[in-house]
């Protein structure tokens, strides 16, 4: 019996493991904005002894964990429009104040998804550029322009196996030279003056394995590359 080709099994780190790596890299006391989707996982992995303050651009600093379903409030949501809670010490504010925080450099870290990242830190994460697609940008361009450190969490390649770390973004840009570091399922990759540099490789994988799945030159600055 002939079986249809199946997508490759996920390899490298799981999403939870990626989120844990991101959380470990965020300094104690930081104000953090988590993008919609996978980045939301980061809040679960704040290391003991550290306190992060989570910001959501729809007007809350001090986002707490999701409520149990009985306590969901349609007026207390995050940017992904999911119910959240507010910690003691939280503050609500309007959208102009919220984006003043973002644009004014008062948010230390944001964690976003990506469609493509280029070696200079260019990010494309809002549109495929298809004529038929409904363009929708949300707050992504404001976040990458204003937040001090922009981290990206993403699968290393697309569902069809295309690299997301590329020489040049072919999708419409979200921002130019904005990304600091990429956390993929295969590697932690820094944006450096020399371009992409792998800082850490997922267990069981080789640097060559990562390089073959990266659409641009990449340096091996990982421990096992030293």
């Amino acid at each position, binding site marked *: 019996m002939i079986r249809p080709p199946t997508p490759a099994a996920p390899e490298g780190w799981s999403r939870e493991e990626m989120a844990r790596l991101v959380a470990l890299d965020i300094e104690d006391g930081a104000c953090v904005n988590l993008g919609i989707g996978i980045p939301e996982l980061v809040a679960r992995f704040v290391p003991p002894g550290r306190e992060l303050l989570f910001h*959501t*651009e*729809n*007007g*809350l600093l001090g986002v707490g964990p999701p409520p149990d379903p009985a306590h969901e*409030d*349609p*007026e*207390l*949501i*995050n940017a992904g*429009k999911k119910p959240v809670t*507010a910690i003691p010490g939280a503050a*609500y*504010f*309007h*959208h*102009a104040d*919220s*984006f003043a925080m*973002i*644009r004014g450099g008062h948010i230390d870290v944001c964690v976003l998804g990506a469609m493509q990242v280029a070696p200079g830190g260019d990010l494309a994460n809002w*549109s495929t550029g298809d004529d*038929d697609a*409904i*363009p*929708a*940008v*949300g*707050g*992504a*361009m*404001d976040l990458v*322009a*204003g937040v001090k450190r922009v981290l990206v969490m993403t699968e290393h390649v697309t569902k069809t196996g295309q690299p997301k770390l590329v020489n040049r973004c072919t999708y*419409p*840009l*979200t*921002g*130019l030279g904005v990304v600091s570091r990429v956390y993929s399922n295969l590697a932690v990759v820094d944006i450096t003056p020399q371009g992409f540099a792998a800082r850490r490789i997922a267990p069981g994988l080789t640097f060559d394995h990562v390089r073959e799945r990266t659409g641009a030159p990449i340096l091996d600055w990982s421990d096992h590359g030293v």
Partner: protein
Amino acid sequence: MIDKRITSVEEAVRDVRDGASVMIGGFGEAGSPIELIHALIDQGARGLTVISNNTGSGRVGLAALIAAGRAAKVVCSYPRSANSTVFPELYRAGRIDLELVPQGTLAERIRAGGAGIPAFYTPAAAGTRLAQGKESRRFGEREYLLELALTADVALVRAERADRYGNLTFSKTARNFGPLMCMAARCAIVQVRHIVDAGAIDPEAVVTPGLFVSRVVHVPAPAHESRLVREGAAYP
């Protein structure tokens, strides 16, 4: 005596004209003034320019206004929704215009409109496709875009409490664009859960001072948009 209370949502939106620009508060359903929007649908004004962060869910509220063909254009940061095809269908059919604006730029343009600032510079979208047709300029090391203020004829906003002066407080993340739209609209119409006596709102905790508000309508038990969407409701 200054008294901005209006007896009904119908009365509150009665004079919205064809071709008006209408700011509509809310981020998703949080803060969306669903009863005022439904009253505007009933009222019948057409050719509206709608300024709102989203384009609504299902076939109620903002999505219903758009589905009814009343909006000629939307100015918006995120016109996609997991549970609504109303805007995409009209947009693909070329029956509605879209001005896509980054969310923070949208908020700041509305605030600028309310604050008498005709234009300002922002780094957001510099170097991207959304910079096309905009002036850019360097200040220091960086490139910024010139963005123009947004004002509107009318704002429809949902708040939590109001007094007769129109002083407002909001509820949690339902605040979002409401205070800004009250500033930027020539006639800000606000539905509130509670109307309270003057002085009942702590003057230190007023979010929108009454001079930004023209009309206040009491809607004690507003519909839950997401519940209506789950139930498959359509308006009217």
